[in-house]
């Protein structure tokens, strides 16, 4: 019978050991081809070119030692079985290698060709099994995700029908409705909305689990998102006579986060807090910066409910966790809300946790990375050892004529952003990344180190360039406004940092005002008259 040739990559720096292994291999029953190298780098290079049946690996090589050696080989060729060649005295390390993905190990002193043969065959088989198992698991996960996304789609269709008919009757479009009937239908609608929320959560959790959840961070104001959350949740809180209060630190920095997603987290936490708080309680939203963790903004939602047991605290962010103690048992969901919150916060590199004492209420806190304007502005304030003091803030507003614009503006905004960048001088001007909640309209800010007179040239260039985008021409209005910012004259005691901070504060105020949709005010730099 013709046996297939086994190709062996032998990575061994001791010529004596290498010869011995080669000899034992050739003596064996099966036809074998051996490629021997004496450095890890050469081994990895060889693996890039061809895939051997097995790698025989000495762990102590001239260019790599110990665990590092097998980790690099696994990383480089995860699908090739590896057998470690170990000395008499480092079987512990060899065992560790097996735990971390190597197939087997052999002790160099007592190699027989039968032994070696068997070890190689075993390693190849084991690797194939592990791969098959991984494939099955992956396929199962894929199947589960596909199944869930299919189910949630199929559930929506009848739900839409129920929703449509209930609202038809409620809106009085099918004839008069008695107050009692109206009340009953409202209850139906509430259940429909709950079911809808569950379907959404199911899909969202599935996405999070399969790594398909996405966030699009922008520069945003937490204060504004808290305001929106309160506006949305107030009716539910009022119904239960729960007061919603806020405690926001003054001069809260802007954060770098996806506004829609953060709003989702806030609504989820506030909804939970209301759910677990008895009548006449209080739900509090707070935000501040903690000195010990100065790169993040802390956002906390606390309630005056009965608190969470210590056992529940560690499980509460896990999928499908349910607390049986809800004061409103009929409003329990699928147990996916906090899991989704955690995944969203994690995608922003933040943390989320809960602190609570039985009977004292609980506080859910999460962190979001601060958006550092000062860092961005430093290079244009301090240029080649000189401090600049004249700046112009250019604000470019693109407002779609269609409202509410559900069209796909993303690409257009991206195009506009690139054009703005091209209209600027690299070392003088700064186009700030997109700000605020996108969608309804887009606003871009440019900080230009120039005076008002010369900024006219820049704005006409921006206008000219933007007008060339056909999408903008037909579907948007364009407004460009400029505001001068004169920093106080640099003196010995004014450090770069202070100057940058003054400008950053100014820019931040302007952005925040824009986000809160107040009319654009004339920015006034502190210290300038």
């Amino acid at each position, binding site marked *: 019978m013709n046996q297939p040739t086994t190709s062996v990559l032998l990575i061994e720096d001791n010529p004596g050991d290498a010869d011995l292994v080669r000899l034992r291999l050739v003596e064996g029953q099966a036809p074998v081809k051996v490629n021997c190298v004496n450095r890890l780098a050469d081994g990895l290079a060889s693996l890039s070119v061809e895939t051997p049946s097995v790698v025989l690996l000495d762990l102590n090589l001239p260019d790599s030692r110990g665990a590092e050696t097998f980790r690099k080989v696994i990383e480089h060729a995860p699908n090739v079985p590896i057998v470690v060649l170990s000395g008499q005295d480092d079987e512990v390390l060899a065992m560790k290698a097996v735990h971390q993905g190597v197939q087997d190990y052999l002790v160099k002193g007592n190699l027989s060709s039968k032994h070696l043969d068997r070890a190689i065959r075993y390693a190849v088989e084991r690797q194939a099994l592990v791969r098959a198992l991984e494939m099955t698991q992956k396929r199962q996960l894929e199947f589960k995700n596909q199944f869930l*996304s299919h189910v949630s*789609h*199929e559930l*929506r*269709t009848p*739900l*839409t*029908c129920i*929703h*449509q*008919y209930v*609202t*038809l009757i409620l*809106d009085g*479009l*099918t004839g008069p409705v008695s107050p009692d009937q109206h009340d009953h239908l409202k209850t139906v609608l509430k259940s*429909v909305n709950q079911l*809808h929320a569950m379907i959404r959560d199911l*899909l969202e959790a599935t*996405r999070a689990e399969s790594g398909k959840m*996405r966030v699009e961070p922008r520069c945003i104001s937490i204060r504004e998102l808290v305001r929106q959350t309160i506006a949305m949740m107030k009716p539910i809180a009022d119904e239960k006579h729960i007061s919603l209060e806020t405690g926001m630190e003054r001069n809260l920095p802007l954060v770098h986060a996806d506004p829609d997603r953060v709003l989702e987290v806030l609504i989820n936490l506030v909804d939970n807090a209301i759910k677990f708080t008895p009548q006449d309680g209080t739900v509090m939203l707070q935000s501040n910066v903690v000195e010990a963790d100065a790169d993040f903004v802390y956002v906390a939602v606390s309630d005056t409910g009965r608190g969470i047991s210590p056992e529940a605290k560690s499980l509460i962010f896990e999928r499908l966790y349910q607390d049986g103690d809800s004061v409103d048992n009929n409003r329990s969901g699928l147990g996916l809300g906090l899991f989704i919150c955690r995944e969203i916060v994690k995608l922003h590199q933040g943390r989320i946790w809960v602190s609570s004492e039985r009977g004292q209420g609980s506080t859910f806190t999460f962190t979001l990375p601060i958006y550092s304007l000062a860092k961005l502005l430093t290079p244009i304030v301090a240029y080649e050892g000189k401090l600049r003091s004249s700046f112009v803030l250019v604000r470019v507003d693109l407002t779609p*004529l*269609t*409202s*509410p614009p*559900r*069209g*796909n503006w993303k690409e257009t905004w991206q195009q506009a952003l690139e054009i703005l960048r091209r209209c600027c001088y690299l070392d003088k001007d700064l186009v700030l990344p997109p700000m605020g909640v996108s969608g309804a309209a887009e606003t871009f800010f440019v900080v230009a180190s120039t005076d008002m007179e010369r900024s006219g040239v820049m704005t006409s260039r921006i206008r000219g360039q933007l*007008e060339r985008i056909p999408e*903008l*021409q*037909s*579907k948007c*209005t*364009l407004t460009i406004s400029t505001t001068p910012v004169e920093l106080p004259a640099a003196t010995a005691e004014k450090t770069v940092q202070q100057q940058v901070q003054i400008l950053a504060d100014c820019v931040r105020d302007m952005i925040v005002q824009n986000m809160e949709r107040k009319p654009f005010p004339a920015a006034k730099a502190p210290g300038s008259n």
Partner: protein
Amino acid sequence: MAKPKILVVDDDPDLIRALRLRLRASNYEVTTATDGYTAVAAAQKERPALIILDLGLPVGDGFVVLDRLQSIDALSNIPVIVLSARDPQANEERALKAGAAAFFQKPADNDELMNVIRVSLSPGQQHPVPWPS
């Protein structure tokens, strides 16, 4: 003034019935189709002012319908609002690229939907406002 005509395309006749009631109550004339082929034929015959389109349809799904509408000069300017149970993350961008004016996932908020219909039918939409100089 004549009522604006809306073509509602969905393979669920029950949903069509409900939408028809709601749209009529807002003073729109309604015509319907339950599959892709009939939808394009109805658009050609009836020349609606707006189309509400489901994506999962027999005989040519919503994307096929969007393509056909775009390829026919007389129909390519009719605003199409997609109303589908499908995942927006996978379908919204595709639908908008294919020429839809808006994408709503089912079940949609009635007020929002009616608002977009109203805005899409306002005169400014058919004749884009010229770029301000």
